[in-house]
């Protein structure tokens, strides 16, 4: 396949939540599907989650990816087969109901309503075994956030995950390599890993895909002909491929993310242990403006989060089991993605308005309030030249001192680089993911989500992907 021009019914580029689901449903419907991914095909268990090994094996560009701006925003994407589902926390939300109505209006999306999505959510939830952490197994650090919110009278929820739990409380994340990719393969789909598609061009009645396939330390040319293509390479790579192929000018002109700021909190009692697992509580009191949650708090992550604190490493060394990392996640800001001539990686830029930066600072202050209410004795906001904060007066003082470029922002949620809808001024694909002005090319990943969600996006990515594939299989363009 790698050097010859075979013809596939459908090529699916990218095997994350959008691509894996697309490949599975298409192959189950009898289509000849080729699923292509730039990363290696590794089992979920190839490394411990949230470790340095995972960073080297499964993060795009080694995890050193940044959206340039003031302040810059570090972002992380999965790069192995299964994409982001292999490295994320597996937290599940349905699409917020009020957003769907807003999208229909602003982007002129046809035949979309929350009610239409409900049966689709149900199918995905069944396929991914969406479930809550068994009673008694909730991480203490997560419960602390819930406790703080409860004391303040704030809305805090436990978020379910795509996880199959055993009776002893252990479980397996239902990532794409555990669910939809085996389903696709079982139904005849061909998986080509370690293969990057760089350009798509028309070729008589088909589309020609050209790129390269890793072969040890070398790479060999890759070519494929396909009658239809589903591009599901993620919010950054999808618009880059469309732009490099000259297929869309609007792709990547705008994108959104969830810029998040972190705070390390220290409690008088133990809240952390070596296998703490994934925290599942989120404070939604201020949603959609911002929400809060608890983050992975392993000692290496704590060390990184305390990097800007004088003597931070010594504090982590002696108190890590009393410490945890929390985040405040916002929805503001807007970015642009551009391929760079002569370079493989694209240039990603992101900017905030003054009011959006204020939202981030307000979110940080409210997170601090929640943590003190939960009993934290000291906190350390993730800002350059950070320091120990012991009460809200000190926190408010720090907030007024901070300048934008001191904020250490990060995200793992990126979307909206190729929005869907019929409004040709702000959309790249139509209401069902078909690329405007070109027959046979579809986008079916987080790129098509019209705006920032304010919740973990995988549930929405998969709901829209299933809706669009089902429409396609009904014989529509």
């Amino acid at each position, binding site marked *: 396949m790698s050097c010859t021009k075979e013809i596939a019914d459908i090529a699916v580029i990218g095997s994350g939540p959008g691509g894996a689901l697309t490949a599975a449903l298409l192959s189950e419907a009898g289509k000849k599907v080729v699923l292509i991914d730039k990363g290696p095909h590794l089992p979920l268990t190839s490394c411990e989650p949230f470790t*340095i090994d995972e960073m080297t094996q499964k993060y795009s560009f080694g995890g050193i990816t940044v959206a340039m701006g003031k302040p810059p925003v570090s972002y992380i994407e999965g790069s192995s087969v299964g994409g982001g589902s292999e490295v994320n926390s597996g937290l599940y939300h349905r699409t917020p109901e009020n957003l769907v109505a807003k999208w229909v209006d602003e982007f002129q999306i046809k035949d979309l309503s929350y009610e239409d999505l409900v049966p689709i959510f149900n199918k995905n939830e069944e396929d991914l075994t969406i479930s809550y952490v068994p009673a008694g197994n909730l991480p203490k650090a997560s419960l602390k956030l819930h406790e703080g919110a409860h004391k303040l009278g704030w809305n805090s929820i436990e978020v379910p995950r795509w996880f199959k739990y055993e009776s002893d409380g252990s479980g397996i994340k239902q990532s794409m390599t555990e669910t939809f990719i085996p389903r696709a393969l079982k139904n005849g789909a061909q998986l080509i890993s370690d293969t990057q598609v760089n350009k798509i061009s028309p070729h008589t009645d088909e589309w020609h895909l050209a790129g390269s396939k890793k072969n040890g330390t070398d790479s060999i040319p890759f070519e494929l002909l396909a009658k239809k293509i589903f591009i599901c390479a993620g919010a950054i790579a999808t618009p880059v491929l469309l732009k490099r192929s000259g297929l869309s000018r609007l792709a990547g002109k705008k994108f959104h993310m969830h810029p998040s700021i972190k705070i390390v909190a220290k409690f008088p009692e133990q809240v952390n242990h070596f296998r703490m697992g994934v925290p599942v509580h989120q404070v939604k009191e201020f949603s959609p403006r911002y929400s809060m949650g608890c983050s992975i708090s392993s000692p290496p992550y704590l060390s990184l989060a305390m990097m800007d604190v004088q003597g931070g490493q010594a504090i982590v060394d002696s108190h890590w089991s009393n410490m945890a990392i929390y985040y405040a996640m916002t929805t503001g800001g807007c970015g642009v993605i551009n391929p760079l001539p002569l370079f493989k990686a694209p240039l990603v830029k992101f900017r905030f308005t003054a009011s959006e930066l204020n939202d981030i600072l307000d979110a940080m202050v409210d997170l601090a309030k929640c943590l003190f209410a939960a009993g934290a004795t000291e906190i350390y906001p993730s800002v350059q030249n950070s320091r120990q904060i012991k009460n809200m007066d000190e926190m408010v003082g720090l907030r007024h001192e901070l300048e934008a470029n001191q904020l250490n922002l990060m995200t793992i949620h990126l979307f909206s680089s190729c929005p869907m809808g019929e409004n040709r001024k702000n959309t790249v694909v139509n209401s069902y993911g078909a690329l405007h002005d070109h027959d046979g090319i579809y986008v079916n990943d987080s790129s098509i989500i019209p705006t920032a969600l304010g919740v973990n996006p995988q549930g929405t990515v998969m709901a829209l992907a299933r809706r669009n594939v089902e429409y396609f299989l009904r014989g529509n363009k």
Partner: protein
Amino acid sequence: MLLYESTVVALVHTLAARPYIVNEHRFVLCQCLAMPDFLGLAMRILTIFFAVYIFITHLMPFHRLSLKERIRVLARLQNSRIAVCRDFVRFYQTLTLFSVASEKDWMQ
């Protein structure tokens, strides 16, 4: 070893502030290769510029300086008013710190 690699190894072991352990600099060099190519090129150019600057000002390559002197050089860059100097050290410090913390036995 080339000037770039020698300088990165010395930077990592200065920032790690502990005896020479291969895993750290191997991880940092590996991540420098994996990172976005335009950023990797910029970091390589900065690192070589840093190495040449140190050679000119100290008449000795960075990796041949004493640990005390290397720490002093990096502290000066960390406190510099020029953002690119601070960011240069911060980049290597982040990777080194994560590597050192990942190697540590936290169960003790």
